[in-house]
């Protein structure tokens, strides 16, 4: 399969009064057409920044993002907006704050169409918006409702309709279900999967919920402090986790089954600061297996098996 998106050595640094914050540090990823890549990690590990940098909501510090072979990270903004913005869309995390409270449902969905498809007439825009509402399962009677009258699940459907209205082929889903109740979460996840099957969409699915990411993704990348530390097919990570951090992350998930008593690997401490990181393994402060080498050398992402890469000096030991 061909790659729709290729991310090459992407970096995004923010300057802060205390130094450079390495939010995304040297990330390389390939995303195949029609597939879903899941990005997991704790808060502050740079998953959202990665998504926003792909969208050009942040400008990359260095590195490339190839969309069908064209570098979209370094082209002039004007050109990006004209030719590529409508192909790459985003669904935002919080359906409560990402919608303008003074627009009704129809206006909200019409807005991106109006901005990006200037050749359409008013009636065509309205028809297109109504078609989107039907597609995501919003009843016609809600056209004139305002976001505050709707529940979280319906609001998130508006967010999805807005993203889909421009016929994109790549959608960055930034924690689209974490603000929702489980019964609503299931509805939205099924909707996203059905849309993908119908329209051949490619997703980047950012979340901190491992069971959600396993359910929806084909490939998974685990991030820690701005770096991808493990990358493999979704099934593989739950059967043959290699990196100590991924192991800890998995063992921390409470499983809704009374009979499974797990060996917990409890991490001490918390994420270290991503400001001016030293040249060492980023996970060294919390890793139970850390050695001298880990403090002095930065491990590279190495491919150990087909499609399974890990950034750890002692990865072979954990296989």
């Amino acid at each position, binding site marked *: 399969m061909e790659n729709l998106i290729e991310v090459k050595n992407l970096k995004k640094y923010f300057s802060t009064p205390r130094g450079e914050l390495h939010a995304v540090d040297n990330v390389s990823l390939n995303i195949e057409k029609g597939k879903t890549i899941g990005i997991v990690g704790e808060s502050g590990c740079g998953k959202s920044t990665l998504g926003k940098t792909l969208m050009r909501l942040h400008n990359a510090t260095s590195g490339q993002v190839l969309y069908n072979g064209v570098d979209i990270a370094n082209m002039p903004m004007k050109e990006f907006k004209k030719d590529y913005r409508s192909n790459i869309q985003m669904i935002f995390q919080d359906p409560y704050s990402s919608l303008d409270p003074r627009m009704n449902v129809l206006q909200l969905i019409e807005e991106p169409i109006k901005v990006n498809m200037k050749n359409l007439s008013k009636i065509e825009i309205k028809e297109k918006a109504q078609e989107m509402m039907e597609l995501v399962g919003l009843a016609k009677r809600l056209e004139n409702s305002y976001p505050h009258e709707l529940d979280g699940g319906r609001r998130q459907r508006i967010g999805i309709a807005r993203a889909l209205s421009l016929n994109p082929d790549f959608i960055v889903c930034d924690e689209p279900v974490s603000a929702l*109740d*489980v*019964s609503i979460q299931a509805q939205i996840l099924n909707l996203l999967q059905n849309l993908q099957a119908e329209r051949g969409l490619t997703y980047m699915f950012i979340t901190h919920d491992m069971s959600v990411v396993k359910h929806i993704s084909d490939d998974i990348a685990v991030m820690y402090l701005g770096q991808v530390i493990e990358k493999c097919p979704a099934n593989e990570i739950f059967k043959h986790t290699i990196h100590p951090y991924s192991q*800890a992350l998995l063992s921390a998930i409470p*499983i*809704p089954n*009374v009979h499974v008593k797990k060996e917990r690997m409890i991490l001490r401490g918390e994420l270290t600061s991503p400001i001016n990181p030293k040249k060492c393994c980023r996970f060294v402060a919390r890793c139970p297996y850390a050695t001298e080498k880990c403090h002095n050398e930065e491990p590279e992402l190495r491919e150990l098996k087909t499609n399974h890469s890990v950034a750890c000096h002692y990865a072979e030991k954990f296989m």
Partner: protein
Amino acid sequence: MSENILSVKNLVIHYETDEEVVEAVNNISFDLKKGEILGLVGETGAGKTTTALGIMGLLPTRVGHVIQGSIELDGENLLEKSPREMRKVRGKKISMIFQDPMTALNPVKTVGDQIAEVVLLHERCSRAEAMIRAQKMLAMVGIVPERYKDYPHQFSGGMKQRIVIAIALACEPELLIADEPTTALDVTIQAQILDMMRKLQKEHNTSMILITHDLGVVAEMCDHCAVMYAGELVEYGTVEDIFDNPQHPYTVALYKSIPSLDKDVDRLHVVPGMVTDPSNLPSGCSFSDRCDKKGDMCNKHEAPGIVDLGNGHLVKCLKYKPEVEEK
């Protein structure tokens, strides 16, 4: 059999505003034994937090009303106590951990002072003694005692939640109510906090009500589990009962809608519709509109009563009514 520390009977709580009456908690009853952990599960708007606030006597004044029922702690009805008496109970006998550690702490007071405050209020001791106690509490929750002069903004989310727990446990309460204590935290931090709570609970034999929407957390922490829907207790039993043998259609549906780590499914099971609006409850069973086992009787009949399936596994569903009548 150990005695009941808390016994809630037929509790009804309404929020009354000029426009509408929200029936937040409808006739719930449960008991909590000493040293036990009860998990209270349900979706947003199910009335979990309202129940907790009702027990604490912290319902919003003028709007929240306890319409009927009793809440007995160690045989004393908390609802008959004056606000002054309740203040002596809160923090000393019952403590609560709130959902969001970021906003639960006072930003302009050092954390040491905030822990010492509880001790000073409830126990006869000097400031210096209270301060020493505060430092001990910090050490107990795994924060170096030297940091007692730091302010909340100097701590991370996980550490703030530890401080909130330290405040709650400072006077060794008999009952701890934890309202979604780990929802705002990352999984690795959640694992740390849950581990610590379990250890402290065992050491002090504290009884606990753990409010959560995460069934995984309940399976790991709790002895008993109560499932709430639209202000009603729809199912109650030991965690083994609820997880191995769920009986209420809502519990079954809830369980099926969670993506599983060890099973592969193509599409998730979906509970149709939305969570029932507690200001506009349907007649009869409040889950009937979303239920896949709905019968003709569900809407016509008055709300289903509680049925004991044996061994204290309680279910509120008409499906089980005939069996009772036979008995």
